[in-house]
């Protein structure tokens, strides 16, 4: 059984790819910092679940996907949507409930969806999209369009029976779907070890899925293993399961401030200081001399300007008219 479990090593990547990965990860971080700001200034209604700390997972995987491949996302989904190609201005507009948002303000932070980028939707039911992603892979295989579906979920979804039902189906039908478990260690306010018995990877290998584990803070490693899993799925070799070990820097949601009852500040500081996915990539790029501080600073200033402009757009954008509430119930 362990023969289908591998821990691939990160390989060297081109300067062009490294810069692109850096740009995408930093974009997510800057986006999320502005979400935090909008939320704490009471400009954003509802809930905000930040992806800060986990950027390498979405970016490393989506970099390996084609534009027409599918993803499904979660309540902590801003990073997935951006990594798959969503534009920040319409994302912010959706988060603020504006007409210009990706879903005309009807979905909000937890439901961003965009057919143009293959985003089948962020989902606020834990494991809610495992069937949808599997179905997209089923249709891709039936229609022979060569597409692959990636299903992102947190380790909390390991508690849902539907995940095991669809992994069984995916293997029986040899579907091109990758189940990506982002283990950020905390199921809301509870350490995953308190909710997860036995082993995680063998849950997938038990169904015959190809399974791999990766350091989710290392974007090069994530990209390398994702490319391998996606390629084999595209070739018709069936589904795979990827366990990405990562860390949620902030609370379960923006309002989750006092976290010491479930984790220590020292633990948080250690991850930020030693395992930051953006800094790790920067250090590697500088060490390899494939970029320099002035190029990186230039990228940061471009992204900062883009994000500030996007926020400005969203804040100024009009709300939908009340009569819009009854539209789009049926196609």
């Amino acid at each position, binding site marked *: 059984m362990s023969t289908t479990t591998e821990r691939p090593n990160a390989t060297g990547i081109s300067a062009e790819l490294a810069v692109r990965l850096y740009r995408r990860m930093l974009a997510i971080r800057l986006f999320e910092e502005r979400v935090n700001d909008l939320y704490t200034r009471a400009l954003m209604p509802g809930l905000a679940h930040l992806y800060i700390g986990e950027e390498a997972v979405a970016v490393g995987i989506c970099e390996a996907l084609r534009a027409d491949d599918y993803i499904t996302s979660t309540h902590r989904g801003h990073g997935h949507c951006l990594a798959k190609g969503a534009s920040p201005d319409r994302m912010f507009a959706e988060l603020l409930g504006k007409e210009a948002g990706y879903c005309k303000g009807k979905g909000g932070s937890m439901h961003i969806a965009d057919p143009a980028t293959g985003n089948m939707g962020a989902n606020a039911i834990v494991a809610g999209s495992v069937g949808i992603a599997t179905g997209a892979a089923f249709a891709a295989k*039936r229609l022979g369009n060569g597409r692959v579906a990636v299903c992102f979920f947190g380790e909390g979804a390991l508690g849902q029976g539907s995940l095991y039902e*669809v992994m069984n189906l995916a293997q029986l039908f040899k579907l091109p779907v990758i189940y990506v478990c982002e283990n950020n260690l905390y199921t809301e306010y509870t350490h995953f070890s308190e909710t997860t018995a036995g082993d995680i990877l063998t849950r997938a290998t038990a169904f015959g899925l190809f399974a791999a584990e990766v350091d989710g803070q290392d974007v090069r490693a994530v990209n390398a293993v994702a490319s391998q899993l996606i390629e084999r799925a595209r070739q018709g070799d069936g589904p795979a399961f990827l366990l990405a070990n990562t860390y949620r820097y902030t609370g379960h949601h923006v309002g989750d401030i006092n976290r010491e009852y479930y984790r220590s500040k020292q633990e948080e500081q250690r991850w930020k200081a030693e395992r930051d996915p953006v800094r790790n990539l920067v250090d590697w790029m500088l060490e390899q001399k494939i970029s320099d501080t002035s190029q990186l600073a230039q990228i940061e200033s471009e992204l900062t300007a883009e994000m500030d402009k996007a926020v400005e757009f969203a804040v100024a954008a009009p709300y939908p008219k009340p009569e819009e509430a009854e539209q789009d119930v049926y196609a």
Partner: protein
Amino acid sequence: MPDTTRRELTFGQAVREALAEEMRRDQTVCIMGEDVAEAGTPFKVLSGLVEEFGKDRVLDTPISEAGFTGLAVGAAMTGLRPIVDIMFGDFITLTMDQMVNQAAKVHYMSGGKWKVPMVMRTTLGATRRSAAQHSQSLHAWFSHVPGLKVVLPSTPYDAKGLLKTAIRDENPVVFFEDKMMYKLKGHVPSEEYTIPLGAADIKRAGDDITLVATSSMVQVALGAATLLAESGISAEVVDPRTTWPLDEKTLIESARKTSRVIVLDEGYERYGVTAEIASVIAEGAFYDLDAPVKRMGAMHVPIPFSPPLEDVTVPTDRTVFEAARALCNRS
């Protein structure tokens, strides 16, 4: 001249013919469920389909209602028109998250961008001596949810025409078949036809009392109408055919004409379809009514096994006849 060419099919044959015709017409239509292929379901409704369309389009699944229903949602979003077969209506409980939180909401949450053109076929109806977990009529649950359409055919003719429309619909449609009706025969023309969703049908015209009846209760209402005619009471039997969309106009017009109404539905009477329809009629025909609208549905108990117990839980020709006579002051 007697119509010697008048073709008769059973309800089950009419369902199968609708499926076969739509599968020939549209390559994206596929069927999935438990024992749908060679077995053709326990009711043999799908016999012959796998032979014509192959195992790629008629798929036996594991006993994973949530899994394959979720798969169908994703496949519907990405280019197929799946029809899922839920053997007994009682098992819809296992699909609720996929239908209620996913299928019903995808279109709306995405601001009208993603569509879910899928059909769930399932059964309803008691008196098969199948006890509490194989006898319920739970269509009210889905009728309660915006984003779903709910179809309740009562004749072979309606079953075929409504199912063809349901398969072509761009929304998730739940299609309930009375399992006691599969052997019922009726006229089904050989020529192509469809029936729109949201159009009630007057199954028998009358003047003194309206019997609004759905699915299995249409035959009961017609039987009661025959008994009532012998007592000099002219009953009109109106079949809404779909609980959503609901043809309120036809129901209200009949009520205004006859001034007395009984609403019959095999679901539980409490908080059920009869309550909604009675309310629509009470609001729409209040000044023309000579008696309160009466409701008759399943008794508020889990369906018992023992025949003498089960038989008293659902309305019959006789109980409806007596209730109608009382309502017309003829008891």
